[in-house]
């Protein structure tokens, strides 16, 4: 009989509590790329288990005038990671006298994540912004640096609620276009903003870790007018340079229960 030995083993060893350096802080992030803009959004609730730690802890950060990074997972790792990315981008600025291009930031993030392959940053990253060719772009990462460019991505606690909704509304999955026409490859800005808001109100309704507030960053390509942002109230511009890409942030309330 093998059973008794195996069953006895745990009892003979002293119980060892190992310090767990990770936790999960809930929340959800999401980004959608347009033809000449990007929208990067996240809720502002930070929680641990059933405790709401705060109703306002930002998960979305402006990196440059053309790049915005959303981080979700273990908040302490997320904040440290953003801090280190910003530091590397500052060094780049000092060395090259310009902001790092979006695709280069994406590769930088993969390198920085993979550098911690054996003690990972427990963070899902979504990078949104404008490429050098003026197109809107979204890059999504796993905690150890696997990444790809996409048109849209959701991550975090309510990823399973939001991502299939985006498949349907952004990629038009399971929808057939009317005869002699095709689905648009990129949606206009007002449509994208509506989908983002709907995604978060839906996630708030059905997921306890999502809610309190919504922060949407909008990055516009160089020279693009403000078409599509007319009806948006409480919008704040965060752009630091002239004649380049422009960054805006919009804040909305979400249900607090």
């Amino acid at each position, binding site marked *: 009989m093998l059973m008794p030995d195996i069953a006895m083993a745990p009892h003979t060893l002293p119980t060892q509590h190992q310090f767990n350096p990770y936790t999960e802080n809930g929340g959800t992030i999401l980004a959608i790329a347009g033809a000449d803009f990007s929208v990067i959004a996240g809720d502002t609730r930070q929680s641990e288990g059933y405790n709401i730690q705060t109703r306002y802890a930002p998960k979305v950060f402006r990196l440059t005038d053309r790049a915005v990074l959303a981080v979700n997972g273990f908040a302490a790792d997320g904040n440290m990671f953003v801090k280190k990315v910003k530091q590397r981008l500052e060094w780049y600025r000092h060395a090259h006298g310009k902001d790092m291009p979006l695709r280069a930031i994406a590769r930088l993030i993969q390198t920085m994540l993979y550098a911690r392959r054996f003690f990972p940053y427990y963070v899902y990253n979504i990078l949104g912004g404008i490429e050098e060719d003026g197109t809107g772009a979204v890059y999504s990462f796993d905690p150890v640096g696997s990444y790809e460019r996409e048109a849209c991505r959701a991550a975090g606690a309510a990823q*399973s609620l*939001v*991502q*299939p909704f985006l*498949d*349907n509304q952004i990629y038009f*999955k399971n*929808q057939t276009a009317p005869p002699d026409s095709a689905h648009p490859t990129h949606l206009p800005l007002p449509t994208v903003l509506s989908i983002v808001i709907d*995604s978060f109100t839906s*996630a708030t309704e059905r997921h306890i870790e999502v809610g309190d507030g919504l922060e949407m960053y909008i990055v516009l390509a160089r020279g693009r007018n403000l078409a599509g942002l007319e009806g948006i109230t409480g919008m704040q511009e965060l752009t630091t340079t002239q004649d380049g890409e422009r960054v805006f942030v919009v804040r909305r309330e979400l249900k607090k229960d």
Partner: protein
Amino acid sequence: MSIMEYNGGSVIAMVGKDCVAIASDLRLGNQALGISSNFQKVFPVTDRIYVGLAGLGTDVITLRERFRYRVNMYTIKEEREIEPETFAHLVSSTLYEHRFGPYFIEPVVAGLSKTPSGGLKPFIAATDLIGCINFAKDFVVSGTASSKLFGLAEGLWEPDLEPEDLFETISQTLLNAVDRDAYSGWGAVVHVLTKDKIISRTLKGRMD
């Protein structure tokens, strides 16, 4: 490994204007391995009630037969057809009888119930595997894609949909949800119950 995910599969029901819809995927798997693409999970109970059984495949078959037996007994004893509300409670008590050794099924009930004035009122309900009933006014979901179904239904559903619009809404909800679920998919079936007819359609879905 969870028994609830052993065979996979998902069910959803939605309320419309004077109509209800219930739909399921058609997959039966052995964990990641697909076994069948025509495994029925939604069954007619009466002319105005359907039940969907998501969970362990063997219990789908057992419970279908058990419900058939109990509904037949009810019809004989009461000399009338069972109402959806009553059937939901029958489902609940059948499951609760096995409180400490449950059937691994989370059923969904959809039907049209008679009102005192002689009209028909949409009814949906779902229970957990030990019979705790959720009487929802909008939609109920069950199965391995339930979180995805919630996300889509919360985004797509609206009140007072006409039968054809309800069909489109439930179909899009189900198809897009199961496409993000490894354990559900391989085709789908939708039933829309209205006061004068039942629309049943089999949908093509992704086969990967």
